[in-house]
């Protein structure tokens, strides 16, 4: 029997602030799961630390709430150890682009089939609103004593240039759009980033619902790429020219920020995941979690060949 959203709720009490964008994201994740009807025993949510990091506790699948900035490495280990699992990461922008930036960047090199959802609210929420790496220079949210002294980074460009094979942006209060993007990201075989614009009413009074949904030049500031005919998907992953064109298009598009802010899929390409590459290297399917390492308490691995390599051979004088 199909499960519904209500089946997905845990009895763990949510403690996000009223009006927090995180509620929209939580809904979108649960709706995506309901649409996909994945086996809940095989879905793992992995989070970092922050308000965002609490997400897994609210959803009735396994949830691994890890360390600040380390969610991607944990998730990578889980997926490599058992490729049958669907692994979804929920991290904050401070978590992923700040302290976790080294992992965020290098994860691209592996293209492991996991989905990274980044709750981008421009602040370190749970530590009371310090500037995160996506808050631009000179901005003064209500939580800051003085205007932000650092420039922002553009996570979409970093992801695209480091090997992410699905790069998208969505918006926490457009649950329908977000749900569809999350579904695509989960279904995509490879490493996905969904950067989610997430209003934090408690600390960020700049990137508010009102800001994102404001009508500028007759239309909402936030607009959907798919409604403009933009197509970020590389159709032929062997066509280097197409790759270059789509890549530059995606980078150019992701520079757009101000009067208009695009959401949707910026870039997508199908390339072998690390598990695929391991399969090639090992000449067989690799699922370490299925290896039987013992039988009745005795090791089953035959190491005689390895011992032979180091065995002392005696030679009788000939």
């Amino acid at each position, binding site marked *: 029997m199909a499960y519904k959203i209500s089946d997905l709720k845990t009895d763990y009490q949510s403690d996000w602030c009223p009006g927090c964008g995180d509620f929209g994201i939580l809904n979108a994740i649960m709706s995506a799961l309901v649409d996909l009807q994945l086996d809940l025993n095989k879905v793992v949510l992995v989070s970092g*630390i922050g308000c965002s990091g609490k997400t897994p506790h609210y959803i009735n699948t396994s949830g691994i709430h890890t360390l600040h900035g380390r969610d991607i490495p944990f998730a*990578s*280990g889980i997926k490599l150890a058992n490729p049958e699992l669907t692994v979804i990461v929920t991290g904050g922008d401070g978590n992923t682009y700040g302290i976790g930036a080294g992992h965020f960047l290098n994860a691209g090199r592996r293209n492991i089939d996991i989905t990274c959802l980044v709750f981008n609210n421009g602040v370190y929420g749970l530590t009371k609103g310090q500037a995160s790496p996506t808050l631009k220079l000179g901005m003064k949210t209500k939580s800051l004593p003085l205007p932000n002294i650092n420039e922002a980074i553009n996570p979409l460009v970093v992801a695209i240039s480091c090997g992410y094979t699905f790069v998208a942006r969505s918006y926490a209060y457009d649950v329908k759009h977000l749900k569809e993007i999350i579904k695509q990201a989960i279904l995509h075989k490879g490493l996905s980033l969904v950067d989610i614009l997430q209003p934090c009413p408690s600390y960020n009074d700049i990137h508010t619902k009102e800001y994102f949904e404001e009508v500028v030049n007759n239309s909402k500031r936030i607009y959907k790429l798919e409604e403009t005919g933009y197509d970020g998907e590389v159709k032929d992953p062997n066509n280097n020219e197409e790759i270059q064109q789509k890549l530059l298009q995606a980078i150019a598009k992701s520079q757009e920020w101000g009067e208009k802010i695009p959401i949707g899929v910026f870039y997508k390409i199908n390339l072998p995941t690390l598990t695929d590459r391991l399969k090639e290297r090992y000449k067989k399917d690799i699922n370490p979690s299925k290896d039987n390492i013992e039988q009745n*308490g*005795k090791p089953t*691995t035959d190491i005689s060949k390895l011992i032979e390599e180091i065995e002392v051979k005696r030679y009788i004088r000939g």
Partner: protein
Amino acid sequence: MKKVNNFTWLIGGPQGSGVDSSANTFAKTCASIGLYIFGKREYHSNIKGAHSYYPITVSDKPVRSHTDSIDILATFEKETLSLHKENVVENGIIIFDKDYNVDLNPNKYTLVPLPFNDIIKEAAVKFQREKDYSKLQIMRNVITVAASLSILNLDVEYLIKTLESVFIGRRSKLLEINIFAANLTYEYIKSNSFNKKSIYELRPTENNENLVLTSGTTATAIGKIAGGCRFQTYYPITPASDESEYLEAHPEYGVVVVQTEDEIAAICMAIGASLAGVRASTSTSGPGFSLMAEAQGWAGINEVPVVIFNYQRGGPSTGLPTRHEQGDLEFALYAGHSEFPRIVLSPGDIEESFYLAIESFNLAEKYQLPVIFLSDKAIANSIQTVKSFNLSNVKIERGKMLSDQDLLTLLEKEGRYKRFKITEDGISPRISLGQGIFWNTGDEHDEFGHICEESNNRTIMFDKRMRKMNTIIKELDVSLKYRMYGPENADYTLIGWGSVKGPILDTLEELNKYYKVNFLQIILLKPFPSEEILSLIKNSKMLIGIEMNYSGQLCNLIRKETGIKINKRILKWNGRSFSREEIFKGVIDAINLDQEKIICKSGI
């Protein structure tokens, strides 16, 4: 009278010039006639050019340590000669390039000037590789080894067998010319009767014990494979990465090896893999281990089995990256803020590394916690002939890991699965991701694994975790806690851990000619078997701590755990492992001198 089958041979040379493979060739050949070997690799943190050297101690009895004194110094360049000649014994042999103008006393040493260039030229001509003359300089190695074996009167056939086993794969095309050079060298030695002048000799023995000749990293890696480790992460670091690279080079065993972007990712990925039910580990050295402090606490509070192999090297910081030290004990005991259950254990040698590697995964899974396997550079990079590894007494124990059927039964009985169910022994039934639903968090949590700040839950859950430490002390077999060598009721007890075991055991017999001395090797460092150790040492006339670190960290730990102060300490921190002579003299001095610390300094 000739000294047969017992000596130390040393080769040296610039890094990258083939010193290691010469030493291996020599060792393998001696082993092939039934002898025991211990070899110690000593090298700079450098890729090419700096001085490296490799003493091989050969014996007809098991041998586990190096000696400071050199019986045969085999050199093919000047630096080695000038650095090491002081250590050559009287009547020792010195092999050197006859073209060097050296000032050595022919009355003190047996001098063997070798015509390296002539031999190489002759070989080059014979194989029509004159243009490769400078490349062929690498044959100085085989020439040195051949000269040594020839002087030692060992038939060249043994060497040729070894060369055949060494020059394989893409190197096999070099076999012929090397054999040729070896034969030329043999002829030269014989024709000059150097073998007659030698007081040392090699003689094939009847010994047919089943041995392997291997290093600490290799033994550990094979142990991991046998023990069912199927996920290994690492970030390159000396001397740990050899172990990971061994696993990488053997994909047929299905161990997924991931080279991560740093050591933080390495431990986090390994923990992730373990959550999915796979035996997982990461291997590193000091700097990397320092970066893993935070994640160890996460594994501790979430009761995740994971094994961290820390190959200690000279610290602090980058320290002496390729040199030896046992400096990380105190750090390993407490790494990471606050308190959580963990096991710290240390193998004493290459053989123990194999079995303890397997056991570490058993302990990690049985007690659901991080296990720190403290090896060191002296174990990692030495080679030794040890009893061939045997799995007949090895068990794989996965503890309270539930099968799918177990889980069903439990769910029927209890309704919901509680990952952190409060139990008497502190250990909860465990399932893997994919099997059923549970939560983990680095925050304090309730039995389900949800964040919980409630004060009583905190008191109870913290205690539940820490209780495992008592369970371990109660359940663990004594052989995993410590080992005692030598006479039972000795007057003097030497105490040590890790690689000091080798030189101590190699000295114990000799020491017992003078005093009644035994040796207590501590294996389990956390939880510490305080009561057992106390009862073992409390009646000793004198306790002598022997450690390769500045302050005597195990001695300090013993005082903390038992109250007993170890007033005599033999310490060394110059980056070079203890020699047998140092231990002998150190113990004699400790017994006789009114001096708390004996500081050893040998090694180049």
